[in-house]
């Protein structure tokens, strides 16, 4: 069921992943997804929110991310303005009781700027909280997250504890650039998202680019799958495959071009480092493409045999 809904949202999840996502929702546990860049970790959260008509709240992690950027911050400017207005009201003609500003007033929810974590737990409807690339954040921030992920609450000293009225579905992604703490890992369900199989990747590309020729999609995906087996500094992900097929489609190719220079010209979509471009010279490229044509060779030999007969 969830798998179908994700499919309708444009994300082709395999059965295991769909089960895990469903289980995370059923057990109200965060889901930690690890995998190489470009395998569809972030896209899963987007599709999940779309499939459930839920609000997607995204927190992009980076080094130095702190509480003020992730959870909440007091709106100092507004607080100051309110104080000034209160002062001027008291000094002026209006001396009504209502014009007086109390300390508790400036430290109320009205003066609180909601950052992604607080926004997620304040939602009244369904919500998907995506904490993207958690491995980029500092360990101190990870420790802060423990309270949020375990209790779905944030403590603001001036106000008190704000509890989630509607538990958000939390998805954390990590590229594995830093080892996450055991405490965080144990609070989450875990799924390792690997590169898709040939059939699944073809289906993904066909789903994203339905107008592209089937032969082109199959050839290109087979090529990318072979490329992934090469020893590369940056292995192309699904996003790269989509970019490449789109580039070839816009160049009006209906199958992989015979001319290697045309392929080389578009390889910038797949190969993102200088070393990979260097290793993937025309010769190596031809070998990979010829690998693609191993079936084609048999077909052509059959055709030749027919012609000879």
């Amino acid at each position: 069921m969830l798998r179908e809904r994700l499919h309708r949202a444009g994300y082709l999840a395999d059965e295991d992943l769909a089960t895990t996502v469903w289980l995370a929702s059923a057990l109200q546990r965060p889901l930690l997804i690890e995998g190489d860049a470009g395998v569809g970790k972030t896209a899963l959260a987007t599709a999940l929110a779309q499939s459930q008509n839920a609000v997607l709240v995204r927190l992009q992690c980076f080094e130095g991310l702190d509480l003020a950027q992730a959870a909440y911050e007091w709106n100092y400017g507004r607080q100051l303005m309110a104080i000034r207005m209160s002062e001027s009201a008291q000094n002026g003609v209006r001396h009504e009781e209502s014009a007086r500003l109390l300390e508790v007033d400036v430290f109320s929810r009205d003066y609180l700027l909601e950052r992604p974590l607080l926004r997620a737990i304040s939602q009244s409807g369904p919500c998907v909280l995506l904490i993207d690339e958690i491995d980029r954040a500092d360990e101190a921030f990870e420790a802060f997250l423990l309270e949020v992920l375990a209790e779905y609450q944030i403590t603001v000293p001036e106000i008190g504890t704000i509890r989630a009225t509607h538990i958000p579905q939390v998805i954390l992604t990590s590229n594995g650039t830093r080892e996450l703490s055991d405490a965080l890992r144990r609070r989450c369900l875990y799924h390792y998202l690997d590169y898709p199989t040939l059939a699944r990747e073809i289906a993904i590309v066909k789903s994203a680019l339905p107008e592209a020729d089937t032969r082109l999609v199959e050839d290109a995906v087979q090529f990318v799958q072979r490329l992934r087996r090469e020893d590369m500094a940056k292995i192309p992900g699904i996003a790269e495959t989509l970019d490449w097929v789109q580039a070839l489609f816009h160049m009006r190719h209906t199958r992989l071009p015979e001319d290697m220079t045309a392929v080389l010209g578009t390889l910038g979509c797949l190969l993102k480092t200088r070393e990979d471009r260097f290793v993937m010279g025309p010769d190596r490229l031809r070998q990979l493409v010829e690998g693609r044509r191993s079936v084609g060779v048999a077909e052509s030999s059959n055709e030749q045999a027919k012609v000879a007969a």
Partner: protein
Amino acid sequence: MTANPAAQAACPPSERLAGFAALLRDHGLTVGVSEQQSMLKAAMFFGPVQEKPLQAAWRAIACHSHREWQLWPDVYERFWHPEKLRGGVKVSGQTRPGRNLRQSVQALHAQMDAAQLPNTQPSGQQAAPQTAGDMPSIGQDEQDAGTPRAQGGASRTEALHQRDGQMWLPQELSTLQQLARKITAKLQPRPTRRWRVAPRGQRLDLRQTLRRSVAWGGELMQPAWKVKRLEPPRLFILADVSRSMESHAALFLRVARAFALEADARVFVFHTRLAEVTPYMHSDKPAIQEKVNAVTAGFGGGTRIAASLQEFARKHARAQLNRGSRVWVFSDGFDTDAPELLAAALQEVRARGARITWFHPTRQVPAATALQRSRGSIERFVPLASLADLAAARQVLK
């Protein structure tokens, strides 16, 4: 789900699950009470008939890292479907599937660990299963169920510490990585001329303090401080991969790789020429040795340490070799160049402010003339023939 329905009926599902959790723990997975409760909940959601989604759910609950994720299918099949394992020979209810040597040794260690743990309580009652070996086997006689299984007496710790680097088990690699992390943490950071904002510090950050005062209507309520920015020292590792060092190259490259990952070290290999292999160190492929061999193929015979060090200092690390840099040379010190050249090359590296540590595979400092003449430039000699040597050197590498 189990091959033997009679045994399944005899054993309550919660006990079977506890046995499975014990097996998972034996394999290094962190499966505590909360995980077992979640697994039980998942089993109630899906029921025993829907095995595939149940397996996916349990995997998501029990695994917490990529290593555990990869380990899962093998452990799962081993417990729930021992009959599927190829060439399996049942020993005490467990199977020994056909594996490569590394996996077999790993399994042997797991068995030995299991055998060392007591599995009966003093009162004679059956203990709660703590390891996979404690669980009664499927179809096993009841008399046999509580019998401790003697499966060897070798110590894993001993084996780990005396391994020569030719064969690496996952736990050894993780030990090496942890060791590298600890040593890296102990390397003294170098203060730079830059400052960074800190909650407490020696100097007031006026710009940041004024910026913060905006929130308080111009009152300097929240001062910002500055402290010196510290940078970890740059680490360069030069590993000798000449023929005389062939038997040690695997260990050297493993150690180099650990530091490349932990300390962002730049790694070079040399015998008659020098080549940087840092990019290879970052990919987790077993064929590092082959790649390095490919890089150094055609370098010719002999070992030109002095020329390699000169090339390193003048060409490769010219801009990065400065005060506080650490240069670690992994070599026996036997140089085909003239002895005085090595002293000069090391002096050149030392003159740039770098601190040189020489790791030698022998117990004693090598007696090579070139090395003896260069002792003044080398800060420390460290024997490195095994992981235990590196662990011992942890105290002196600063």
